[in-house]
């Protein structure tokens, strides 16, 4: 087209938006930057929320930690909606093939009944843990401050629903799509004594309204312990007895958790580094929830792994301690 040729030489008057240029200079900006920074409304709010009259619609006082700039909580994956959903679609494509393979080859259905029962007892109830995580991350995306952290939490909310549904599919793989395993697993979650302490802590966390405390408790503490115990330690033990079939279908969960950890670290670290009072506060949260979830996991760890469960949990806890140190916190694990 003639127009295109003629305008080749036109130089742009500016390279990006004003607020992006003030942060990063007037140069070409990434889609992550333009789609993220400063897009949450900050001032001149109109009405007091009927559901929280003491605070504004968006309000930095909804957490006890304080940041000069909440946009310091950059997502290292640089996910905006498009890049996130395209990445997940691609992963889901691979997962679909794994699941099809597992269904065709009856990777779980062909296991001995005791092994299938072990999966339903040990793993399928976690769909409810994931639903709790979905609830908690949704709180962050609803009441957090600054799009950098709230959009990532929004994606994590959906990711957790995806994980809950993936775990449900494991149940369906084991029960031949009858759904019986889901019914049994829910019963374990709500009534079996080994599971009750974990459910108790999930409910306690769902009642917590400080959104940054929720990030620390859910994604840093609870997820590290739960994913480590069930999808790593239990899976290793199970594989050694029944072959790698289960690992194949748990792959999505463990990869997702590895990816998510990068985000979690990038969110917690700058908040801890911001001030001594933040560090003290995050430390208190980490310690409190670490004790709570560790003790809550003790019966189910032994329920699914026997005496080895205790060592498995100890090993995961040691790793968590090392991670806390990396984030600028102290490892009070020995005292726990």
């Amino acid at each position, binding site marked *: 087209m003639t127009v295109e040729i003629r305008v080749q030489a036109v130089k742009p008057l500016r390279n990006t938006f004003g607020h992006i240029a003030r942060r990063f200079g007037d140069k070409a900006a990434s889609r992550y930057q333009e789609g993220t920074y400063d897009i949450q409304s900050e001032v001149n709010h109109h009405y*007091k929320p009927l559901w929280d*009259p003491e605070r504004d619609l968006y309000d930095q006082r909804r957490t006890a930690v304080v940041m000069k700039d909440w946009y310091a909580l950059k997502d290292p994956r640089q996910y905006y909606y498009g890049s996130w959903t395209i990445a997940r679609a691609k992963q889901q494509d691979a997962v679909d093939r794994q699941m099809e393979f597992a269904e065709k080859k009856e990777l779980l259905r062909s296991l001995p009944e005791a092994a299938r029962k072990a999966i339903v007892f040990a793993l399928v109830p976690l769909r409810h843990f994931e639903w709790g995580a979905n609830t908690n991350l949704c709180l962050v995306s609803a009441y957090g401050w600054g799009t950098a952290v709230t959009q990532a939490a929004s994606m994590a909310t959906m990711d957790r629903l995806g994980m809950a549904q993936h775990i449900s599919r494991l149940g369906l793989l084991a029960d031949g799509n009858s759904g019986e395993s889901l019914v049994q697993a829910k019963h374990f979650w709500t009534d079996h004594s080994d599971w009750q302490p974990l459910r108790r802590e999930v409910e306690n966390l769902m009642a917590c309204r400080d959104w940054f405390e929720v990030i620390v408790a859910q994604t840093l503490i609870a997820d590290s312990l739960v994913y480590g115990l069930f999808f790593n330690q239990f899976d290793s033990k199970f594989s050694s007895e029944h072959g790698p079939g289960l690992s194949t279908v748990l792959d999505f969960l463990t990869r997702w958790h590895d990816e998510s950890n990068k985000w979690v670290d990038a969110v917690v670290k700058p908040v801890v580094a911001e001030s001594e009072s933040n560090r003290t506060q995050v430390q208190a949260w980490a310690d409190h929830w670490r004790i709570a979830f560790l003790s809550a996991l003790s019966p189910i760890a032994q329920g699914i792994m026997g005496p080895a469960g205790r060592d498995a949990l100890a090993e995961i806890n040691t790793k968590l301690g090392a991670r806390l140190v990396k984030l600028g916190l102290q490892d009070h694990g020995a005292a726990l």
Partner: protein
Amino acid sequence: MSVNAIRPGYHGDMKDTIEKFHGNQLINIGWDKHLMYATPVCIPVPPQMPFGALLQQVLPTIYGQHPDFEKIDWSVAIWSLGGEPFTPALDKSIADNGITHKASMRLRTPGLDGLAGVGF
């Protein structure tokens, strides 16, 4: 009717009370049948300002561009205040005329009904 909130006692701040205007009060003025001014205007004025000064000093700066403005015969102009008929005393202040903060006044100018026969 009243609002339903999560706790009793919900109430927004009164955002525009008079003490926030640094000694002024707001008045709203509209000139009927003169839609060249597409909306009534809102201005801050000292409550002590005589009504006559509003007419002579303020209104020309607002409405002076309309060809009808210079033809107004103020002796027949009709005012209303808050929807009620109102006869201002020119030598009295805005306040003494009973024009309170955020009052809405409308001016009618009989015989002058804007341009094009449609109140423009």
